[in-house]
């Protein structure tokens, strides 16, 4: 398939290793991957603060980067940004061209699980990984069954990771409580955000895992800052990095 990468600003500017892993992984899987120019933030810091007017030009700039780009799918390695992009594109542009872009948007896990399923990964990753089930991927993209729901269980992340030989997937307790990042919440509500982050990082450490693995770079960045502050024996990894090493 021909894939256009949607690399959110945080990943582009501060976590390029996640974008590189996503690109290499998709290429190794035989896809043709391009990076449309002129991408920027999805507008989430503004719209989540209620500031829709301030978000407009940023959102439309990102949308324009994808309008008319020839591709089968637009893939993004950040669940929260992807959800925001979908909602904000819809908010500011109701044209068929915008809808065409929205229809092609996929989060990386969704793409690898639902759209172009991967058969198997060959190289073992003999480590215990603790899953960071970030909120927007979980409850807005329904990548797995959230703990609040009593419907039958499924988990797209685990389905993918279990194809990696020798990996052991574990979960912190509570299973899928928010890590406390919440965008500007981390600054506005520093004390509560930090306490949530501390509890979450400690819960991951209590599993005895060597890595915290997730699909949302912003939560991973938050946890990384907390893990280093608490000097916990843990490292954060994006799902793309694990899968890219395993293929």
């Amino acid at each position, binding site marked *: 398939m021909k894939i256009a990468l949607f*690399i959110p600003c945080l*990943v*582009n*500017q*501060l976590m*390029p*290793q996640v*974008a*590189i892993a996503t*690109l290499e992984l998709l290429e190794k899987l035989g896809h043709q991957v391009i*990076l449309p120019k002129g991408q*920027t*933030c999805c*507008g989430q*810091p*503004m719209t*989540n*603060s*209620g*500031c*829709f007017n*301030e978000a*407009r*030009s*940023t959102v439309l*700039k990102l949308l324009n980067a994808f309008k008319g780009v020839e591709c089968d799918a637009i893939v993004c390695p950040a669940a929260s940004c992807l959800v925001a992009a979908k909602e904000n594109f819809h908010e500011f542009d109701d044209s068929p061209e915008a809808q065409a872009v929205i229809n092609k948007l996929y989060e990386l896990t969704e793409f690898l699980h639902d759209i172009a399923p991967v058969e198997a990964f060959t190289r073992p990753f003999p480590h215990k990984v603790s899953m960071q089930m970030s*909120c*927007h991927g979980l*409850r*807005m993209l329904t990548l797995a069954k*959230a*703990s*609040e729901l*009593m419907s039958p269980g499924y988990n797209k992340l685990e389905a993918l990771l279990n194809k990696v030989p020798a990996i052991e997937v574990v979960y912190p307790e*509570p299973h*899928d*409580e*928010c890590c*406390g990042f*919440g965008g*500007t*919440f*981390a*600054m*506005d*509500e*520093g*004390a*509560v*955000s*930090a*306490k*949530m*982050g501390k509890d979450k990082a400690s819960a991951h450490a209590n599993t005895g895992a060597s890595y915290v693995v997730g699909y949302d770079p912003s939560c991973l960045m*938050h946890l*990384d*800052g*907390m893990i*280093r*502050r608490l000097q916990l024996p843990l490292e954060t990894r994006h799902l793309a990095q694990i899968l890219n090493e395993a293929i």
Partner: protein
Amino acid sequence: MATTTTANHAEKAEIFCRDETRVDWHSKALWLLRQKRDRAASSLPEWEQLRELGSEYKLHTLSHLGEYLEQFEANCVKQGIQVHWAKNGEEHNRIVHEILSKHQVKKLVKSKSMLTEECHLNPYLEQHGIEVIDTDLGERIIQLNKQPPSHIVVPAIHLKKEEVGELFHEKIGTEKGASDPTYLTRAARQHLREQFLSADAAMTGVNMAIADQGAIVVCTNEGNADMGGNLPGLTLHSMGIDKMVPNMEAASVLLRTLARNAIGQPITTYSSFYHGPKPGGEMHIIIVDNGRTKALQDELLAESLKCIRCGGCINTCPVYRRSGGYSYNYFIPGPIGIAVGAQQDDTNTTAWACTLCGSCTYVCPTKVPLDKIISYQRRLKAEQGKLPYGKERYMPMVGKMMGSTTMFNCAMSVARFSLRYLPHSMLKPFSGAWGKYRELPKAPKTSFETWYNQNRSK
């Protein structure tokens, strides 16, 4: 930004967080309720269907609310119940006072009602010389402690048993140092028994009002509403217009989820249906609007009126558990408190006391889209120019910067350079809450775009 002397949510939360042992205790106590809820909900294979049904029944009723309210009133009148209508809290309090003075009531026993908190009934009646005794154990504890509820279902959840022991020793004469819950509960029971026997009238809240029956449902675990309702001849029941359900079927769906979602119980110990006055007695129902009709006019805010006040969203809320019930500047805390009360918060911060994690929406037994409503409340505040935490200054700049490739790339290059080469001890003071509580991000040499142009661009 409004000038106010009230501390904002972040400030109150920061103070709450200073005692970490207490935060851990508070968070754990509420998470235990969430775990009990999960066990109770998972024991019903039809749980998700019940949530859907509950949501549909409430939406249906809300969209035909006028008809159902009139039907309810007509059926009540047929059974000898006196129905009163109150536009707002003031009217509600006046009506209650009129009824009570007509009967020369000196002492009123009251079981749990968040609506009377909303209307500030207790201080109003006390000013008029009527003694009000809250009879729900938790409510009585906070009443003796001169505090408002910190949670809508477990109002004294912020107090430890030792603190209750001390309070009871001082107020109702229990032994000094005693903190055994059974001992304290027995003492409270004895104390409340005396209040029931000496009361002239009783008042309860309403969990559901059934239109085709002209009946109300009152749910308690302690039977205190029934003790009150069955002792004196005069009973009053206050309800918001949102408590309406069409029939027994709808009521039974909501009854099946209410206590399970609140505290993991299959059903409240007492779920009483009141159909009319006792022989020779009087039964009054006061139906209150107080802003609900206005909320009904907005498609999204209207969904908040589906709430049945189980408190499940509060128990699961990771922010509430770590900031406490008194941080919200509203008598209802947590997600539902923000959803229905954000516009009344003059610190303009409680709408932002949320990470938009969505756990509340998924827990809700009537599928109130709480995270969407909270997000919308922020938008409404922004449109009124009421933004907190300096957002009105920096958000336009962020928007401008992120809309421009050159500006954004420039700023981020500087940021990466600083994070790589300057000592973090020097940067932390400028990084606000981030650096106070966490390490700063490790910055890469270049952006992904630069890497891509060097490694992939044709």
